[in-house]
């Protein structure tokens, strides 16, 4: 089933710009340690350090050829109980949108999974990388959580954690009582507020009202032209789009 993938997470960090002494916006550039000159994209290559200071150069083309078959198909391997997957495996969240021609299969899968209360384990290829994902429906839309492979998680033994010891039943009971007393039915999103971002914005607003430390610079043309693509908007359009063929 071919699908398109859209990020379901976004950063809530407030982006601060680096400015020069006069308030002029700065940009980050790569430069050569040998000549000190700034480097353009085509003057740089990607290298893997196989011995200290020795690199194997790997080109984009080579990586592309090593990539698993370029396809947007999700290959569903298994259906499991979502809660049986330890959250240790979950990495990033994405939404799947049906691509042209797969609307029917998409809706069918979402409805079947919702009814059976199961999540699908699938592999997926994106930008030359192989992903293991858990797919589950949310409000008729399929969410895909990318997962860590097993070797991307340490085992408690590797970390050096001690083995379970016998503990006095009274100590366990004490913790059980505390847990029972402080149990809630729902997670409050208030617990997950980003205070830091809010505080920063408050400070910015305060200084702005006081006309303190404000600099204005002329918009360089290329910056004004570079539009940021709002992926959420693209996703919304893609979901709402009516099917053209079949």
């Amino acid at each position, binding site marked *: 089933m071919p699908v398109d993938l859209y990020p379901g997470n*976004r950063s809530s960090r407030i982006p601060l710009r*680096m*400015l*020069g*002494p006069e*308030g002029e*916006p*700065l940009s980050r550039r790569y*430069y*050569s340690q*040998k*000549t000190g000159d*700034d480097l353009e994209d085509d*003057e*740089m290559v*990607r290298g*893997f350090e196989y011995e200290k200071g020795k690199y194997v*150069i790997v080109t984009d083309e080579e*990586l592309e*050829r090593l990539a698993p078959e*370029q396809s947007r198909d999700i290959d569903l*391997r298994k*259906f*499991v*109980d979502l809660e*049986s997957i330890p*959250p240790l495996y979950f990495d990033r969240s994405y*939404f799947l*949108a049906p691509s042209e021609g797969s609307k029917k*299969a998409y809706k069918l899968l979402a409805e*079947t999974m919702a009814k059976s209360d199961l999540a699908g384990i699938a592999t997926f*290829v994106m930008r030359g*990388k192989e992903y293991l994902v858990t797919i589950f429906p*949310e*409000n008729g839309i399929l969410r895909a*959580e990318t997962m860590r*492979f097993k*070797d991307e998680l340490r085992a*408690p033994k*590797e970390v050096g*954690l001690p*083995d*379970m010891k016998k503990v*006095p039943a009274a100590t*366990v009971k004490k913790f*059980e009582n*505390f847990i029972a007393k*402080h*149990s809630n*039915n*729902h997670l409050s999103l208030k*617990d*997950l*507020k*980003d205070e830091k971002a809010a505080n920063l914005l408050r400070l*910015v607003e305060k200084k702005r009202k006081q006309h303190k430390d404000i*600099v204005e610079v002329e918009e360089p043309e290329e910056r004004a032209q570079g539009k940021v693509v709002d992926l959420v908007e693209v996703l*919304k359009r893609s*979901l709402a*789009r009516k099917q053209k063929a079949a």
Partner: protein
Amino acid sequence: MAARAIWKGDLKMGPAKVPVKLYSAAQDQSVRFHILDKKSKIRVKQHMVDESGKEVPNEEIQKGFEVEPGTFVILDGKELEELEPEPSREIEITQFLAPKEIPPEYYDRPYYLGPDGDQSAYFALTQALHNKEKEGVAHWVMRKQRYAGALRAEEDHLVLFTLRNAEEVLSAKDLPKPAGRAPDKKELTMAKQLVGLLQGEFDPNEYKDEYRQRVMEFIEKKAKGHAPKLHLVKTKRKAASLDKVLSRSIAALRKEKKAA
């Protein structure tokens, strides 16, 4: 080899304190590349330049928030420092929830907790979380950052997850429902059969990052001086009707099960 703890703190539950050490549970295994200068094959460095391309040294760089295009409010180091949370060693557990109450998309990074001294309180808490089938909601400050997290018992040990904040998670409720007609009864029955045939237990041993393996093998060969020729794989997909795909998949799976 035992890992090094990245931080130490106390799990605080009311009057009880459980001293713990934090260890990263995730280890990124992606093939790591460096950016090199094409000519000298030496690693490149980064610096900040102004619009004329002149380098601006670190001590002259200021930070600003763009309130509207081209207008910045400058924030100095002291102001930014004042926004940082008070340092603390306490991981405060304020409430407990049934594990399914925190959706997967909120879990961010996992850390193993190990006992720092008192092992009996550590393992007692692990057992209590198992027995009650609960996970704790945690709040703490680590390395100048405030975190919300989930404390879980995973088998014999405690794992503390950082949780994404509410602004970072996009909800399906804010998205339009997919357009198109609803599946009919026949399709639903077949899909249910297919899902039933593929139902099983999650087993992480079944999946390997084959792409990463291929890249590493290629790099090893290239390092020895004989890079194999690579051919671009092209695939053609045939469009087939949905019920054909479903019935074919079901038939194939039934055959496999019989053979097994």
